[in-house]
Structure formats: C-alpha cells, structure tokens
C-alpha cells in the first residue's frame, strides 16, 4: 500500500504541481489586473452577476419570503406592546397630520402663486431587491433593474422615505446599490436648520457619522439631514435622516429609510450626472471651465 501511494504521487505529482502553478498564476494575474484596472474587472464582475442573479431569483424569492414570514411571526410575540406603542405614536401623528395638512395647503397656495412646475426630470424607476452583498464587510444590495431599464451609474436609490444609496455597477438586468452605510460611501449633505454642509461617511455601522462640518456646535441631535447636491452626483434635497449623537459624542445620522427591510427601491432618474468618459476622470471630473479653455486653446 505504501509503495502504491508512492507510485501514485510520482505519477501525479508533476501534473498536480503544474496545475497548481497555472491556477495560482492566473488567479493572481486576475487580482493584479483588478488592482491596476479596476473598472474593467468590475464590469466583468457585473456581467457575471448579471448572468447568475436572474437564474437565482426563482429560488431567492421564496426563501426571502419565508424568512420575512418567520420574522413577522416573531413579532406576534410582542403584539401587545407594539399595539400600545402604536397608539401612543398615533396620538403624536394626529398633531403632525394637522400640521402637515396646513402646510400642504400653504404649499399649494404658494406654488400656485409662483406658477411652479415640478421638475419632470425627477422621475423614478422602482426595482425589487434581489440580494444583499452577502458579506459583513460590504453594504450593498442588488436590484432587478439594470441597463435595459435605463439605469445609470451614480443615480440615487431611495425607499419611500429617504435616501438608501446610489447605483454603482450596472449590468443588463441587475444593478448594485452601494448603501450609505458602506465603508466606501461619501455623501455630501446639508443640515437645513443651521445651513451647515457636511459629509455623511459610511463606516460599516448602522449609523453613519457626519464629518467635515464647519461648526459642529450648531448641529443638534434631531436635526434633519438632506443631500446638498454638491459634486453633482446626487440631486439636492433628498432626505437622508436625522442627526443623533453616539455615546462618544460623535454626530451620526439615523437614516430615514427603513434599512432593516428593503424590498423595493426607487431609483431616481437624474438627467445631468457627470459621466466619466475616461478612467482618469473617475478620480477628478474635468471642470467645465477647464474644458472651455481647453477647447478655446485647441480652436
């Protein structure tokens, strides 16, 4: 037996070593290409996901539905407390409803006075959440809408209430939404009450911190945070959430969107987004004045 084993190794050893070398070399090459020219490999990844995800979805839908059913069932246990809480909230909501109605009337009157037409460019496409990122290190979801529905990179994704993230990676039939909580997400925001601009910086926690505030003293927990539209990627005025303060005194955002259960997401069509033409412009988009001068020099 021992000699048999030795023979087998003699015979398969070189082949195995060759296979090992080839595999490791090609995988390393792929990784290095990704490091050097990430957009191209990310497009490949999007294409793979685009092929795989729709064929998963037949199985994904019932599994997700069952999981949600179980979760709903668990909430029966706290039915009484929930009922009490809802009653309390309803009381508060009634006063808010009154305020909202008055504001709505006032708003309608003002709009009428100004003869304002709402921006037709802010229409949206609604997609179903197919999958999450599948890893605790990344916060993103996959939608079942993609290039075929006219989705473009950079568009904002919201649930009914607030901003969830933006599109990053569009396949033919799927697209990936990088959420505000992802460690690579930076969203320019403004706190309307004090007019302070800030960045909402994802750090892989449920409450993304606010940073780059000129005067943090002017910000109080409870202030609303909306997108500022700076940088031209996201439209201005989308609700992000409200300011909260963590135990360390750091300002964070509690998102208005119900991130715990994302089922449908609206992707806002933005007509004017800066589109990087070359990979270099991903780093710093060319400013329009520069372009003009460049053209003037050329001409």
């Amino acid at each position, binding site marked *: 037996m021992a000699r048999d084993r030795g023979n087998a190794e003699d015979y398969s050893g070189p082949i195995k070593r060759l296979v090992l070398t080839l*595999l490791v070399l090609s*995988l390393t090459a792929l990784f290095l290409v990704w*490091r050097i020219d990430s957009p191209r490999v990310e497009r490949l990844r999007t294409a*793979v996901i685009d092929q795989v995800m729709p064929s998963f979805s037949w199985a994904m839908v019932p599994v997700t539905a069952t*999981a949600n059913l179980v979760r709903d069932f668990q909430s029966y246990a706290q039915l009484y407390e929930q009922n009490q809480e809802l009653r309390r909230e309803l009381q508060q909501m009634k006063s808010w409803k009154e305020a909202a109605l008055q504001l709505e009337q006032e708003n309608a009157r003002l709009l009428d006075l100004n003869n304002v037409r709402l921006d037709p460019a802010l229409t949206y496409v609604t997609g179903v959440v197919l*999958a999450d990122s*599948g890893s*605790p290190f990344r916060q993103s979801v*996959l939608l079942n809408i993609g290039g075929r529905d006219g989705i473009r990179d950079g568009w904002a994704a919201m649930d009914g209430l607030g901003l969830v993230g933006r599109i990053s990676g569009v396949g033919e039939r799927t697209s990936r939404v990088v*959420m505000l909580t992802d460690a690579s997400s930076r969203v320019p925001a403004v706190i309307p009450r004090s007019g302070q601009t800030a960045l909402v910086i994802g750090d892989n926690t449920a409450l993304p911190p606010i940073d780059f505030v000129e005067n943090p003293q002017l910000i109080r927990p409870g202030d609303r945070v909306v997108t500022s539209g700076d940088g031209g990627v996201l439209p201005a005025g989308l609700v992000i959430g409200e300011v909260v303060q963590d135990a360390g005194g750091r300002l964070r955002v509690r998102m208005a969107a119900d991130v715990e259960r994302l089922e449908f997401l609206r992707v806002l069509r933005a007509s004017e987004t800066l589109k990087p033409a070359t990979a270099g412009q991903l780093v710093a988009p060319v400013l329009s004045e520069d372009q003009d001068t460049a053209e003037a020099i050329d001409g």
Partner: protein
Amino acid sequence: MADGIASRLWGMRLAYLGLAVFIVFCQLVPIETVPRNWAAPDFLLALTFAWSLRRPDYVPLFSIALAMLFADMMLDRPPGLMAALTVLVCASLQRRVFRVRDEGFATELLLVAVSIALVIVGSRVILTVLFVPTPPLGLTLFMGVMTLAAYPIVVFLSHLVLGVRAQAPGQDVVGRSLT
C-alpha cells in the same frame, strides 16, 4: 466496478461545486441589510478544507479555484485573491492527508486553524501592501474564529450526510474495501 467508482467520484466533485453555489446563494439572501458587528463563518472555506483533508479526490484544485473565484465575484471581494490563497493552502493540505488521518482530530484542527489564519492574514497583508482599503480587523478575525468553530460541524455533517470520511488503509478512492 471501475464505472461505479468514476460515477461516485464525479458525483462528489459536482456535489462540491453545487454546495459552493448553495452556500453563496444562502449568503446572498437579502435578510440582513443592516451592518452588523458580528460575522457568520465562511462555510465555503471550512468545507473546502474539510474535504481537502479527507478526500482530496473530491476537491481537485481546479474545482477549488472555480468555487472560490465564484464566491469572490458574487460576494464583492477582490477577485482572485482569496481564491489564489485558498488553492495554495489546499494544495499543501492535500499533501498532508495521510499524516492527518493517522494523527487524530486535534492535529487536524490545529492545521485548519493555521490554514484559516494563512488565508485571512495573507489576503489582508497583500491588500494592505497594495493600498486596497481593508475591512475592519476585528470583524475579519471574528470571522476566522467563527470559521474554525464551524469546522467540526462541517466535518460532522459531510461525514453524516454525504459520507465524506477519511480514506482508511485498504480502501479505494471512494471509500470501498479493496478486498
């Protein structure tokens, strides 16, 4: 007889790839969309190590590379890095298959712990050297520990359900007696 061996062998190879797809699929189900401060074990890694140490014939290096690359792609990891490291580590594990069988489960667990650490720390070091932003260290280490904790369960389940057990002396590649 030879035909039966071949069909069982290829069946188990397909089963490995099927399990890999299944594990990735389970991870993708959109139940957790809130960031958490814990991490589930990497079952695919545990499965790959367990089978490499028991039945290297069921998990040829090519299958491992394919499965790990698929997971890299789907789970938004740097493509190819973890796959390359796992293939390297598994190749060395597969050479130790007879020694591990003779020395018991504690040795095997130790070996697996070293392997997990190699893959995780290795990929982290390479990412840091190449200036790729890395996920939080605590979460990564937690995942490593969870994977090690899940390893005996994976071994037990693949023994019980799929009959993947160490090749005893005097058996052929699919575990039947030669006599």
